[in-house]
């Protein structure tokens, strides 16, 4: 075969070019497959492997008898895979016409959609209930790329009932993110914001699991590679008896006030009422700005947890403690007669500290003065003791400090002393301030919870039990110093006289009781209007009325249950707060197994 010279060189050059080109290609593949192999292998795995978080189911909350107070209910979320939806815009319009979504949802969707990876479902609407989900499901074939995802949301079957101890869950916000382990909250949208939901958050929340799955480009799971199941949150059983809670809420309906009902032996809070209240379900899927503003601006302050954070002058409900202080420190002979005139005056002073009873009570002993809530008797006692003796004796009961209940945000109240006044107001203590401290006025402040807990300690002959809201948390108590049991009995006796003696301020309550109830009425003066709240003229009058208070426990000989009641601007402790206290105690015994 002859070779033709002209093309020999050209073919040779072509061959050289060809070899060079093939080496370039090979070099490129070697670079990708050997040098950068690890990088691309990882990218390939990132493509196909999806870590799916399996959020734990939040623990439920029950009352002491197993009644569900906070549970989980199914909720549906409408999602869309944009790449599969060929008529996204018109589909969204149709969903709007069907009333399943609104303009806000469409706006929000167009805002967030860019954040999602290809073929990942993008939420269009969250928080659809079963009815709405069913409506969509029946026509879902008309919406290509759209899908329903099932999840669970918190719900509170009794709505506004018990919100002040239950609290509520809400969407995790930036502030929450600072305090939580984000690892534990992957796949979880809500967190306890308040009350038991917040205090027992870590117990209720649980631990998320995960699933390592292989997916195709459409995000469909091909197989599960690895799986760790979630650890569901633990249930919490409360000390609350929802029946007592409901009664308390009913009794205070339309009022502003609080009731705390507590078991004397265990510290169990059986009812924890604060009125007015609000529906925690509003917060689960994010409360609307309008609803929130409305609640926030409500002059009756539904957000205020009055039982835990409402601080009121205890008024005459403070008298039993002053009496006990006098007895234990030998300033008082309970049977010695004392003449109580219409007013009390300090030596070398012309100021008259008036009794609530214009003409005075005349000759009284401890029982009588307690029963009739004689102010002059206690002005005199307090003056003789001096503020330090009062403060030091009463402080161990828990005034001026938190009770330590398992709820967050408890207020301390205030038990004044010389040191406190010096430190806070940089002023000396005046004698006149001691006088009014004797009847629970002046600086003294207490929360309804404090009042219940300290009254229970008094009723228990000095066994002070820490209030608790979680039935599973340990019951803790301490014995206060008792110098003479007889003195404690005397005070209880005097409180029985409030209800059961013919001259007692709350004598009307004795009717129909087949056991002895000890109690003390109180009124607390309202000092002007705070915080520039808006009142109309009609309401103004009522707002200036005294707060009505009543503390009680029963049976007097062996107290089982203590109650503290406060009705803001209720005016009459014995007339308004007293019957509520009695109703709570009666219901307690009625329900007692």
């Amino acid at each position, binding site marked *: *075969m*002859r*070779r*033709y010279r*002209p*093309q*020999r060189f*050209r*073919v040779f050059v*072509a*061959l050289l070019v*060809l070899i060079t*080109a*093939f080496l*370039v*290609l*090979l070099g*490129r*593949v*070697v670079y*990708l*497959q*050997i040098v*950068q*192999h690890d*990088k*691309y*292998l990882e*990218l*390939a*795995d990132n*493509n*196909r492997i999806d870590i799916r978080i399996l959020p734990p189911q939040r623990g439920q909350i029950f009352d002491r008898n197993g009644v569900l107070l906070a549970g989980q209910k199914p909720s549906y979320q409408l999602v869309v895979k944009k790449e599969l939806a060929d008529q996204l815009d018109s589909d969204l319009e149709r969903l709007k016409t069907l009333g399943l979504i609104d303009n806000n949802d469409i706006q929000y969707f167009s805002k967030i959609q860019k954040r999602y990876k*290809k073929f990942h479902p993008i939420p269009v609407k969250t928080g659809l209930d079963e009815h709405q989900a069913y409506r969509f499901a029946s026509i879902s074939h008309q919406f290509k790329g759209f899908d329903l995802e099932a999840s669970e949301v918190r719900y509170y079957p009794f709505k506004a009932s018990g919100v002040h101890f239950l609290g509520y869950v809400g969407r995790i916000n930036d502030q929450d993110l600072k305090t939580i382990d984000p690892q534990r909250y992957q796949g979880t949208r809500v967190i306890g914001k308040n009350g038991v939901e917040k205090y027992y958050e870590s117990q209720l929340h649980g631990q998320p699991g995960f699933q390592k799955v*292989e*997916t*195709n*480009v*459409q995000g469909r799971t*091909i197989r599960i590679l690895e799986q760790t199941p979630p650890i569901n949150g633990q249930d919490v059983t409360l000390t609350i008896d929802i029946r007592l809670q409901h009664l308390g809420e009913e009794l205070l309906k339309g009022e502003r006030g609080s009731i705390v009902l507590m078991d004397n032996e265990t510290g169990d809070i059986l009812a924890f009422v604060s009125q007015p209240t609000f529906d925690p379900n509003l917060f689960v899927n994010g409360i609307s700005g309008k609803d929130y503003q409305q609640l926030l601006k409500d002059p009756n302050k539904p957000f205020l947890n009055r039982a835990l954070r409402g601080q009121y002058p205890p008024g005459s409900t403070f008298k039993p403690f002053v009496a006990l202080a006098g007895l234990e420190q030998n300033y008082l002979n309970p049977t010695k007669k004392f003449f109580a005139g219409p007013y009390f005056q300090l030596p070398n002073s012309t100021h008259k500290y008036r009794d609530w009873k214009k003409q005075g009570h005349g000759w009284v002993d401890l029982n009588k003065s307690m029963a009739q809530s004689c102010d002059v008797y206690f002005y005199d006692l307090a003056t003789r003791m001096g503020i330090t003796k009062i403060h030091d004796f009463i402080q161990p009961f828990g005034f001026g400090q938190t009770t330590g209940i398992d709820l967050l945000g408890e207020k301390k109240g205030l038990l004044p002393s010389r040191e406190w006044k010096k430190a806070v107001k940089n002023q000396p203590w005046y004698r006149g301030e001691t006088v009014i401290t004797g009847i629970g006025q002046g600086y003294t402040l207490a929360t309804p919870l404090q009042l219940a807990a300290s009254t229970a300690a008094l009723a228990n002959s000095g066994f002070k039990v820490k209030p608790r809201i979680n039935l599973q948390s340990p019951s803790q108590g301490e014995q206060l110093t008792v110098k003479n049991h007889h003195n404690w009995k005397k005070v209880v006796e005097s409180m029985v006289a409030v209800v059961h003696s013919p001259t007692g301020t709350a004598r009307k309550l004795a009717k129909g009781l087949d056991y002895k109830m000890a109690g003390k009425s109180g009124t607390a003066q309202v000092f002007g209007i705070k915080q520039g709240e808006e009142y109309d003229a009609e309401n103004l009058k009522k707002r200036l009325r005294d707060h009505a208070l009543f503390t009680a426990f029963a049976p007097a000989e062996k107290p089982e249950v203590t109650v503290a009641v406060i009705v803001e601007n209720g005016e009459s402790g014995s007339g308004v707060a007293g019957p509520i206290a009695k109703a709570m105690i009666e219901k307690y015994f009625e329900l007692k197994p």
Partner: protein
Amino acid sequence: MLSVPFNLRIDRTLLILLMMMAGASLVVLYSASNQDLAVVIKQATRFSVAFIMMLAIAQISPHTYKRWAPLMYVGGLILLILVLILGTTGKGAQRWINIGGFQFQPSEIMKLALPLMVAWWLSLNENALRFKHWSIAFVLVAVATLLIAKQPDLGTSILIAASGLFVLYFAGLSWKVIGAGIATVAASLPALWMVMHDYQKQRVLTFLNPESDPLGSGYHIIQSKIAIGSGGIEGKGWLAGTQSQLNFLPEQHTDFIFSVISEEFGLFGVIALLSLYFAILLRGLWITLNTQMFFARCVAGSITLTFFTYIFVNIGMVSGLLPVVGVPLPLISYGGTSMLTLMAGFGILMGIYNHQQRQDRQNHV
């Protein structure tokens, strides 16, 4: 060994290499189509038709093509113009023409008609080629290329231009002109940019920085590089490529099938494929080297180097060396038209080989 009917003239070496190629294509296609046997059967059918057509063409003497070259070229031009006027549009480009309910791409005819035409034109004065002959040859190339680029189809116009220019190269175009030509092309790239369509510009931009648009136009090339790179030396195994089996790789059974091979068979598979291609190219160059007839030699060289251009552009593009221009991996990618053209080209190559063999035998005698 392959037994051949007595009177059928073929190049056995080339036939065996091409059959290996077809076999490889079917194996890879089964995987790349997500194990869709229908796709494999369809492609096998096409291969059968293509092989029969190739063997038929191989029986035709180069003198016959030479005679028909001008007619084919003119006919091709008319069809291209028709496409521009009444062609159907696919993916923003007009490439197809409907004749009696049968769709085909006139540009495919041009892939063969142009080198034949240029070779015919130059062979008229094969011993005294002057400036005007070369100039007219360039015009022949330019007209065909521009008509296809106008469709627009960048990939095919590159292949067409290359097939014409390769003829000029083997016809003995002066090295000075070649050098000047390469320099001019390099210098006129900015001008090319000006006339490019938006989607073509986008492809170039994406090629320069695929990560700039990872979900949009950069997606193809990123996923392709992931497929190739993650394959490693040994590959993930047949039917076990995650990029391809889970459909992360786009157009995996057509333009991006090289990525599937790389992912599933690794560097070993790539070397095997390149070796097979190289063997075919060597055979083509060997035929070119041994062809006496000027026209046939130019055509043989052009067909061989055009085949090489397919390979280089496709692999270069899926591995991120070149911008994405729709060029299939020859004889492997799924698809009928380009495969038929390629096989017809190999038929011509075989015909040239057979013709030379006969002449050699006559000379011996």
